[in-house]
Structures are given as C-alpha cells and as structure tokens.
C-alpha cells in the first residue's frame, strides 16, 4: 500500500514538478523584480519659494512600466509621423515631440484626468496623455474622417475632454488656460489647469498680462514653460534678455527642473498642483528639455544647432533611456519585458498608421458643418453664387 502510494505520489509530484517548475520559474522571475524603488532626483531651482518638491521619488514597477510604455508610444508615434510626412501622406504643419516625452508623461502623472490642460502646437504627445488614441491622432494628421477632429483640425487642432488643444497662435493658449482656471475656481470644483508654452512664446506680451490677472485673482493655474532651447531657429540667448524663464513670472513663484527626467517632472507637477489646489494662486514651472526634430517637418533642425549637440542629448539625456536604465539597474524589469513592450507599441503604431492611411477622407457634406453649436441647419455660400451648401451644428 505504502509502495503504491509512493509510486502514485512520485508520479503526481513528477507531473506537478514539471508544470510546477514552469510556474515556479516564472513566479520566481516576477517575484525577483523589485516592486518599487526610491530614486534621488535633481533639486529644482526655486524662485520665491521657501521649499520645493522632494529630492526623492518613489517609483513602483507598474508605474515604471506604464511611463515607459507611454513615452515609447509617443516616441514611435512621432517617428511614424515623420515617415508619413516624408511620404507626403501627412501635409501642412507637423511639429514633432520626440525628445520631450518625459514632460507630457510626467505632467499627466502629477495631475488627474479631471484636471485641465492646454498647450500650443507641439501637441501630439499631450493629445495622447489626455485620453486620445494613437489611431485617432494619426488619422487626424492624415486628414481622415476617423481623426480626432474628423480631419477638420489637423496637427495643431486636436481636442479631447478637458484638453483644449492644440493651438496655432503662439502664446494665445496662455490666457485661454488662465480662463479655464478661472472657470475651475468659479465652479469650485477643486480642478486646476496646466497651461503650457515654449521658450519662444515666453516673451509674448499676453503671457505677462495673464501672469498679472492669474496672480491678482489667484487662479489655480500651473504655467509650464517647455524650454527646448530653441524657438524655431532662434536660440534662447538670441531671443530673451532673461533666459531664467522660471523667474519671468516675477511675483509668481517658480521652479526650474530637468524636463528629461520623468520622475522630476512628476514630483514637481504634484508639488505645483498642491500649491494651486490649496488656493495660493498660480505657479510657474520651467522644464528644461530638448526636441530631436527641427521646429517642424520643414525644418531639418541642423542649421542653428550642431548634430553633435543633438547626438549628445540623445546619448546622455534621453528620457526613455533614463527610465529604462533606472528600472533595469534596480531590477524593476527585465530587458525582455521592455523589448516586449517595444514590440507591442510598434504594432500599435503600425495598426494606427495602417488605419490612418486607409481610412477615407471626410465626406464633402461635412465641409460646412460645425460652424455653430446648437443651431438649426443653415445655408452657407459656396465658391459661387449658385452653390448653396448645407451646414448643421
């Protein structure tokens, strides 16, 4: 009896160990990963602030993988847009965000989806982090009916819930953002508005008008200057008498931080959001970042800066590499796992590009629609007096 039991148990154990071994090996792999780690992050330069964001950031494995995936998605999406533009499938303006991914991803992790955000024209990354899908972003770039704005807006005019674009006029989005913040305060909903602009826009008069009113009325507005060192082809030294953009708010407290480190951006955004939500009024953040592409697709980006400079940033400060190195060296993920994410992202981008190139263009009946909201249908004059086109809300 005992012998039989021994044989049976051996058989069972054998099969168990066969399956169990696989399970145990995988479990051992995941159990091996560090669930979270604390990283030292660079200290922020402070303006009119007694203390700044913490000098350490806690990153969980899940967060790390999510940030990695999102940044990689933005990166690959922008590179695909570059490709499609060169194939003339995307036309007009196309301002690419590769290199600056840590800003969009870091900011979003510091706020809630119920908060508000507005930026200028380098907006594809933000459209994604604010809830847009790669498919609808790419289809908007190719001007198809499946685009996030049905093909009517293009690269610079993409909108989602609580994301007010995508704005083509340099600096105009800043007063708009303060207006959104005013609405948040008026409605008492504890929401804030993140209002982005570049180093080029930072010299716009309407921004200073906005600083004044936001401060006077204590609007819950985080002004963020994405300083990528060049306003189109003009370096910051040639455009601004003071390149300390985080101080240009004068009476508004400011922070300057490394915009290539997603954890730095996250911690600073959390700090800034807390400042606004506590009723202290606006705050200003300067993110020091870099764009690998030129200003837009019609700018090679090498007439005003050296290839060496671009290469140096790529090798020493790339936001995705930085996060990857951190996670790998702290055993928070494996090389294979990250490679798998890369493959998935690549596939997502390919599918989206496929959709964006095959989806039909908007129907001509849509030409005159969306002029007015909540209005009865009306007639719009065509190109000649005999052509009367229909417009619905």
């Amino acid at each position, binding site marked *: 009896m005992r012998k039989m039991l021994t044989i049976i148990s051996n058989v069972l154990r054998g099969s168990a160990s066969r399956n169990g071994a696989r399970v145990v090996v995988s479990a051992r792999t995941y159990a091996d990963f560090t669930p979270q780690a604390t990283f030292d992050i660079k200290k922020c330069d402070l303006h009119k602030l007694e203390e700044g964001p913490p000098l350490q950031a806690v990153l969980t494995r899940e967060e790390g993988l999510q940030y990695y995936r999102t940044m990689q998605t933005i990166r690959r999406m922008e590179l695909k847009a570059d490709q499609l533009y060169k194939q003339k499938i995307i036309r007009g303006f196309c301002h690419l965000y590769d290199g600056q991914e840590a800003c969009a991803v870091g900011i979003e992790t510091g706020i809630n989806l119920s908060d508000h955000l507005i930026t200028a024209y380098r907006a594809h990354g933000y459209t994604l982090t604010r809830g847009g899908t790669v498919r609808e972003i790419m289809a908007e770039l190719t001007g198809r009916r499946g685009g996030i*704005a049905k093909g*009517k807006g293009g690269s610079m005019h993409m909108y989602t819930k609580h994301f007010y674009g995508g704005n083509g006029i340099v600096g105009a989005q800043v007063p708009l953002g303060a*207006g*959104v913040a005013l609405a948040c305060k008026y409605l008492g909903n504890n929401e804030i508005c993140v209002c982005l602009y570049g180093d080029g826009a930072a010299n716009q008069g309407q921004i200073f008008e906005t600083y004044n009113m936001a401060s006077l009325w204590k609007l819950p507005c985080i002004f963020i200057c994405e300083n990528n060192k060049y306003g189109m082809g003009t370096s910051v030294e040639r455009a601004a008498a003071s390149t300390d953009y985080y101080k240009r708010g004068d009476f508004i407290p400011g922070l300057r931080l490394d915009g290539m480190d997603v954890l730095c951006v996250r911690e600073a955004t959390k700090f800034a959001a807390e400042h606004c939500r506590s009723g202290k009024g606006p705050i200003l953040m300067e993110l020091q970042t870099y764009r690998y592409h030129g200003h837009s697709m019609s700018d090679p980006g090498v007439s005003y800066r050296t290839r060496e400079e671009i290469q140096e940033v790529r090798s020493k400060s790339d936001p995705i590499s930085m996060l990857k190195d951190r996670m790998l060296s702290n055993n928070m993920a494996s090389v294979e796992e990250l490679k798998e994410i890369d493959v998935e992202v690549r596939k997502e981008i390919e599918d989206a590009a496929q959709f964006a190139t095959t989806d039909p263009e908007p129907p001509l009946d849509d030409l005159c629609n*969306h002029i007015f909201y909540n209005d009865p249908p009306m007639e719009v004059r065509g190109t000649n007096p005999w052509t009367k086109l229909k417009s619905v809300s």
Partner: protein
Amino acid sequence: MFLRHAVWYYHAFLYSILRYHVTVRDALNQALDEELERDERVFLLGEEVAQYDGAYKVSRGLWKKYGDKRIIDTPITEMGFAGIAVGAAMAGLRPICEFMTFNFSMQAIDQVINSAAKTYYMSAGLQPVPIVFRGPNGASAGVAAQHSQCFAAWYGHCPGLKVVSPWSAEDAKGLLKSAIRDDNPVVFLENELMYGVPFEMSEEAQSKDFLLPIGKAKIERQGNHVTLVSHSRMVSLCLDAAAVLAKEGIECEVINMRTIRPLDAEAIETSVMKTNHLITVEGGWPQFGVGAEILARIMEGPAFNFLDAPAVRVTGVDIPMPYAKILEDNSIPQIKDIIFSVKKTLNV
C-alpha cells in the same frame, strides 16, 4: 380746481411716457441683470464694469447686486482678458466680455477670431465657445480717429461669429438676451450715441423672457418707392429722412438690419422686389463694408432683376475720423445725404 386737474393730467402724462420709455442703456442693463439672475454661469468682465458701474454706465448697479465673482474689473489688458474670457467659455461658463470700445478689441482680435470663432469648426464640434463680446462701436462725438472706427465689416467677415448691431431699446434688450443665451461667439456692437436715447418699450418687451431672434431684420417703416437698409444709429437717420421725403410724396421702406452676420438677405430682397430701389446706409467706411456686401448679394440674388436703378451705398467718408466738429459732422452720413441719394436713385 382747474389747477388740481391740470396737475393731475400733467403727472399722468409724465407717468405714461416714463413708464413705457426706456433708454438703450437701461434696456442693456435690464438684459444683463435678467440674464445674470437666470443663469449662474453668466458673468461680466471688462474694464470698469464693476466698481465704476461701467465706463458708460451700462452695468450700473450690477456689481452691487452680484458681487466680485460675477462682475469682474480687469486691468487694461485686452488681449489677456479676452483670452481669459474665451478660456472660461471653453470650460463651461458663459462670459460677457466688455470692450470699453470696439477700437480696443483690435488688441484682442486674435482671441475673438482664432480662439473663439474658429474653435467649434476646428474641433469638428467637440468644443463650443458660448461667449458674448460687447461694447460701443463706431463714431461717437469728438473722440477722433483712434476711437471712432466701425468694426461691423471686420467681424462680419468671419465665419463662426454672429455679429449683432441693435438700434432701439427693444433691439438692445431682446438681442442681448439672445446673444447671452446663444451657445456661440457673438459680437454685440452697441453705439455710444444711442445709449441715452429713450424708446417706447412694449409690454411684451418688458418680460424677463423677451428675446429677439439673431439673424432677422425688422421693417421699421413700410414704403413703396425705395428700400433703405441700415443698422444701429443710422436707422434713426433713415427714419428722419423718410419723414422728410414723405412730405414730398416719396415713401421709403426702412429696414433695421438688427444682425450683421448672418445677414437677413431675404428680408432685403423681398423689400427690393417691392420697391425696385435700394440704398444702404452705414456709419462705417465704404470699402469692403456692410453696404458692399448687401449690394453684392442683391446682384447675385433674385432681387437684381427687380432693380430699376443701380443699388447704392451711403457710408462714412473714406478717411480717418477728424476731430473738429465741422469736419466730424461731414465725415458721417447726414439726413441730407440720405435724401440726396434717394432722389438721385429715383431720378427726381
């Protein structure tokens, strides 16, 4: 005894005219008050609108009643506060943005056109902008070139905007209420010289729900011989000219446009098909103006075949507005200019 009766009649007379006559300023004030009361999301911002009671006293009493949250004094930064107003509209409020005069709106015109007017279209219907931009437009008295421009044609040019130009107190009240309730950007062109003018206000117009439709003109005076089309203060001049001409047996049909965009071309065409003669009258400059648009539409539409004479425009003189009274008076249409043009058109 006779005296007591006389006094009674005098008071009754005063009471009757005072009761039913309202100035354009007060009509606008009523409209603002009623809409602020009706909808929590409506608020007014602009220079001196709150504690000063309004540069032209249009917002008198509102700050006292509604407070700092709903009536906001801004610094002198048009581009900034117009942008803030548009952003607030995007985020769900219903702002009324006052420009002290529309001359200053040029500083903010990018926000009106590129941020407000075009956004609903660019977003394919995702982002409406329910905002009203209002303030005095056009010539005043002695304020010279930089403060006298008419912007009806500038704003009337742009798709995505509605542009309203009231004349009477009823126009002012009904159209402003409609503009505030409209879910789209509306440019509301008032006139400083009209603010103090009293008009009879019907019972209907005194109701809190009195609305006038945007995009519909009104025939202020019926006539058979010539159609006079006008907006804002010039409607008064047309009616005065019509009264003079009537004595000579010429009956003018006076159309008050009420709205610049969308233009009520149908009302004008119907009238022209009856009178066979058209004259537009405006205070603004002639080139590429409101009158130019009306004439083009008549050319392109069914009313052309009914014209017995070329349609013409009476406009402001094509110069910056001078200061000296004699020069200013001769820079804008006068009643005699309208009468002269009517007689030329009718060949009498």
